[in-house]
């Protein structure tokens, strides 16, 4: 087999494997038999993070608005039940066995020279998972990223909203995966 044909076959196989992996990883196979409280405060859901300088141009990323519904949806597939709270419930007063508290840590964004060039956005969320007594059992920073066209002076805003949306989707997906796989949470089910 010649090199280009070999490369093409390799790419097809890798793409197929990646697609299968994404499909199988998109939702946890079995839900954790735990009742969870998800704390999405109005402040968190309204979080806007600014990046850039006066020299390179400042940008605002409305990460809270984009992330909140996606986090709720993604985490709903991890736990047997998920109740949303707009403030941290007092320990013992909430129905869940675990309380999930997210916090935006930072965003990182590249800039491009050309409107059609793709830029990257990275969102970091730190999760604190507390047990019923309020003790932290799992704390982790989770990353979500996305690429999108930078856009020109007319379309930059639309493309910015899109990239925030894609990165929020990714961070929600990754959060669900990491939380579902945490042995510290599995331990609570025993």
């Amino acid at each position, binding site marked *: 087999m010649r090199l280009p044909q070999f490369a093409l076959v390799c790419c097809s196989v890798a793409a197929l494997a990646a697609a299968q992996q994404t499909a199988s990883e998109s939702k946890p196979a079995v839900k954790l038999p735990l009742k969870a409280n998800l704390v999405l405060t109005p402040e968190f859901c309204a979080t806007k993070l600014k990046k850039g300088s006066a020299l390179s141009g400042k940008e605002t990323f409305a990460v809270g608005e984009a992330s909140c519904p996606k986090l709720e949806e993604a985490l709903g597939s991890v736990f047997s039940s998920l109740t949303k709270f707009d403030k941290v419930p007092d320990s013992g007063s909430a129905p869940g066995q675990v309380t999930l508290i997210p916090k935006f840590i930072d965003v*990182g964004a590249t800039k491009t020279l050309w409107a059609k060039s793709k830029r990257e956005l990275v969102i970091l969320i730190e999760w604190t998972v507390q047990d019923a007594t309020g*003790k932290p059992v*799992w704390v982790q920073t989770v990353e979500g990223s996305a690429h999108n066209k930078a856009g020109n002076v007319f379309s930059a805003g639309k493309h910015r909203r899109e990239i925030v949306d894609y990165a929020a989707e990714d961070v929600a997906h990754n959060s669900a995966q990491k939380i579902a796989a*945490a042995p510290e949470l599995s331990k609570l089910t025993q």
Partner: protein
Amino acid sequence: MVLALSLAVLIAKPPVYPDYPVRAVSEYQVNTAQAGLAIALDPLEDAKEQKTYFKTEFRSKGFVPVFVVLHNQSASESFLVRKEEITYAAARLGLTTPVQGSKAGQGVALAGALAISTPALIIGLKMIAKSTEVQQNIFKKELRTVTLSPGAKAHGFLFIPADKGSSTREKIRLRVPVTRIGSEETLNFDLIF
């Protein structure tokens, strides 16, 4: 055929910002362990190496990138390492929190951006695009808060302020507080490099 050739070229292209190689904790010169958790440090002092992994050098900007490797060797315990609780002491000074990667990145980017000359606006824009890529790479390679489950490993860079441009530096003591999940006991790991 052309598509296949392009794909082959793309596959062969090395990454722009390669990952820093990770070794076993015991293989690093600076390492320590207690209660089943092992921590190692690898200060990246060589400007050439900094260029390889970050496409910039840090000493003239007043930072030393330090690669931190964590390995939970315990069979049953979990440990929590909060990045914001890690502190450093230069010489005999009190412990201070290292600079956040994005701030270190901003310092690097600003130093580059200041070199812009007004007539070469297009070059300036390229420098900004390039500097945000450099910043992003620093941001992505930074050590993050992590819960280390039994057997788990984690790694990342911390950016410690150091004397700008000086060829030698004082020894730095890094303190990594680690919480045992469940008992809430805090263990302090002190490493000097």
